[in-house]
C-alpha cells in the first residue's frame, strides 16, 4: 500500500517537473520579445547578446517612439475596424447558414454543407491570385474595408461547421413549440435558435477575431499604397527590412502592443476558446 502511494507521488512529481521545464522553454521566445522591447534600440546588436536587459538599463523609449507616431495608431484602428466588422458579419451570416442547414434537413442542405466543408481543404493562400483579380475588378484594392468581405468568406466554412452542431442539438420540442405557436422561420431563428446557439457563436467569434487580427498575406497584397492604409501585421512586418539594420526595439515594442488585446481576450475567454476547439476535434 505504501509503495503504491509513493509511486503515485513520484509519478505526479515527474509530471510537474516535465511540464514546468517544457512550459519554461515554450515561453522563452515571448519573454525574449518583451525583454528586447524594453532595451534601448541601440543596444540590440551588442555582443554577447543578453536575454534580460542590464538591470537599470530598462527603458520604455521604444514604446514612446511607437506611441508618438500617429500612423501606428491609425494602423491599430484599422485592425480593430476590420476585425470587429469581420466578427460581426461572420456571426450573422454563418449562424443563419448553420440554422438552415442544421434545422431543415434535406438533400439540398446536406449537399450544401458538404460543399462548404470541402472547400476547407484548399489552403486560403492558394486563392490569392483569383481573389486579387476579383478585388481589382470590384475596386477593393487599397481600401481597408475591402478586406472584410474576403475575411468573412474565409471564415464562413469553419464558423458554419461549428455553429451547425449546436443548432442540431437544440431539443426538437422547443422548436416544435415555436412552430405550433405560429412562429415564422425568422422568428424561430432570432428568438429560439440564436440565443440557444450563443455559446457556439461566441467561441467562433473569438477565432474569427484572431484570424482577422493577425491576417497578413492577403492584407499585404491588397494594401500597398500608404503607411496609413495598413493593418498592424503589415506595420510590424514593415520593420523587417531585408537589407539594412532591422529596428528590433521598435519592431518588438509594436508587437507587444499588438499582442495585448489578443492576450486579454484569450485569457478572459479561455473557456469558450477550449470549448470551441474541442467540439470540432473529438467527434470523429
Amino acid at each position: 500500500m505504501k509503495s503504491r502511494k509513493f509511486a503515485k507521488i513520484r509519478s505526479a512529481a515527474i509530471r510537474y517537473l516535465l511540464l514546468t521545464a517544457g512550459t519554461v522553454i515554450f515561453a522563452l521566445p515571448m519573454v525574449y520579445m518583451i525583454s528586447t522591447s524594453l532595451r534601448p534600440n541601440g543596444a540590440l546588436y551588442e555582443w554577447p547578446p543578453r536575454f534580460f536587459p542590464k538591470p537599470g538599463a530598462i527603458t520604455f523609449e521604444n514604446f514612446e517612439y511607437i506611441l508618438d507616431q500617429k500612423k501606428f495608431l491609425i494602423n491599430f484602428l484599422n485592425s480593430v475596424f476590420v476585425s470587429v466588422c469581420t466578427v460581426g458579419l461572420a456571426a450573422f451570416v454563418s449562424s443563419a447558414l448553420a440554422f438552415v442547414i442544421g434545422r431543415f434537413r434535406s438533400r439540398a442542405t446536406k449537399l450544401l454543407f458538404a460543399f462548404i466543408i470541402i472547400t476547407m481543404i484548399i489552403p486560403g493562400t492558394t486563392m490569392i491570385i483569383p481573389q486579387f483579380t476579383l478585388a481589382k475588378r470590384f475596386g477593393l484594392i487599397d481600401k481597408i474595408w475591402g478586406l472584410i468581405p474576403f475575411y468573412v468568406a474565409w471564415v464562413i466554412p469553419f464558423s458554419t461547421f461549428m455553429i451547425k452542431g449546436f443548432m442540431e442539438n437544440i431539443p426538437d420540442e422547443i422548436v416544435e413549440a415555436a412552430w405550433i405557436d405560429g412562429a415564422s422561420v425568422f422568428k424561430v431563428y432570432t428568438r429560439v435558435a440564436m440565443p440557444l446557439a450563443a455559446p457556439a457563436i461566441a467561441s467562433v467569434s473569438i477565432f474569427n477575431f484572431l484570424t482577422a487580427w493577425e491576417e497578413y498575406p492577403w492584407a499585404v497584397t491588397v494594401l500597398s499604397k500608404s503607411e496609413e492604409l495598413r493593418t498592424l501585421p503589415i506595420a510590424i512586418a514593415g520593420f523587417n527590412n531585408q537589407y539594412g539594420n532591422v529596428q528590433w526595439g521598435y519592431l518588438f515594442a509594436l508587437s507587444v502592443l499588438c499582442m495585448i488585446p489578443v492576450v486579454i481576450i484569450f485569457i478572459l475567454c479561455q473557456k469558450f476558446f477550449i470549448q470551441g476547439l474541442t467540439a470540432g476535434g473529438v467527434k470523429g
Partner: protein
Amino acid sequence: MITRSRMNRAQIIALLAPGLIVFGLFTVYPIIRLFMMSFCGIKLETMFVQPFCGLDNYVHVFSDPTFGTSFVNSIVYTAVTVPAQMALGLFIAILLNGIRRFSVTFRVINYLPVVTSWVIASLVFKYVFQTEGLLNYFLRTVIKVIPKNVKWLNERWGGMTVAMILGTWKGIGWNMVIFLAALQQVPKDLYEAADIDGCGAWKKFTHVTLPAIRGTILFAMVELTIGGFNVFTSIQMITGGKPADQTQTLLTWMYKNAFSLDHDIGYAAALSFVMAFTLGLLAVVQFRMMRSRDV
C-alpha cells in the same frame, strides 16, 4: 418542418442568401477562376485577356527546377512539423491529464504561441537565430557545442530548420488542447481492465489510448497537413526565400511568380492547383490509412 408555406420558404432563402452570396463570390468563384487561369497565358497587367494555352502552364511547372526545390521544401516541412507537433502535443496532453492543480495555467501558457500572430512569432525566431544572435551565443559560448556561429538564415536547410522549429513551437498548443479533450473521453474502465491484465504504461498507451483517440489523430493529421502546405508568412519573414530561392515553399514561390517576378499568373495558378490536388490526394490517403486499421 411543419409548415412549408411560401412565406417560410422565402424566409429560408433570405437567411441563406447573405452567406451564400459572400461565400460564392469570394471563395467559390475564385476557386473556379483559379482552375480556368491555370490553362491560360495571363500576366497581371493583361488580366482580362486570356488566350487558352492548354497544359503549357502545367508543363512549365513540372519543368521548373525551383518548383522542385519548393515542392521538396514543403514536403519536408510538413513531414517534420506534423508528427513533431502531434507527438509533443499528445505528450503534454498525457502529462496534463494526470494532474489536478495548475492544469489551466500550463494549458494557457502552452497555448499562447498558437494565438501569437505568425508575423510576430516569425520575427522573434529570426531575431533569435541571427548569426550574431542569442541562440548561437548560447550554443557557442555557454554550452560550447559549436566551434563557430552557424549561419542559420543564409543557407537552405538552416532557414528551413528555423521555419520548422517555429512551426512546431506554434502548433503544439493546438494539439495539446485537442488531444487533452480526446483523452478525457477515453472510458476509465478500459484502463482498469488493462491494469488487471497487468499491462505496463507503454502497453496501455499503445493498446488503449492510441486506438481510443484514433479519430482525433486523423482529424489533427488532416488539418495539420493542410496547414503545413500553407506555410507562407514564416518563410517570407525569416528568409524571404533566400538564398537564391533555396528556401521557397510552394506558396511563397507561387506568390513570387504572381506578384514580383514576371507576373505570370497562369503559371502561379497552375502551381496552386498542383498543390491543391496534392493535398486532396493526401487527405484521401490519410483517411484510407486510418480506415484500414479498423478492420
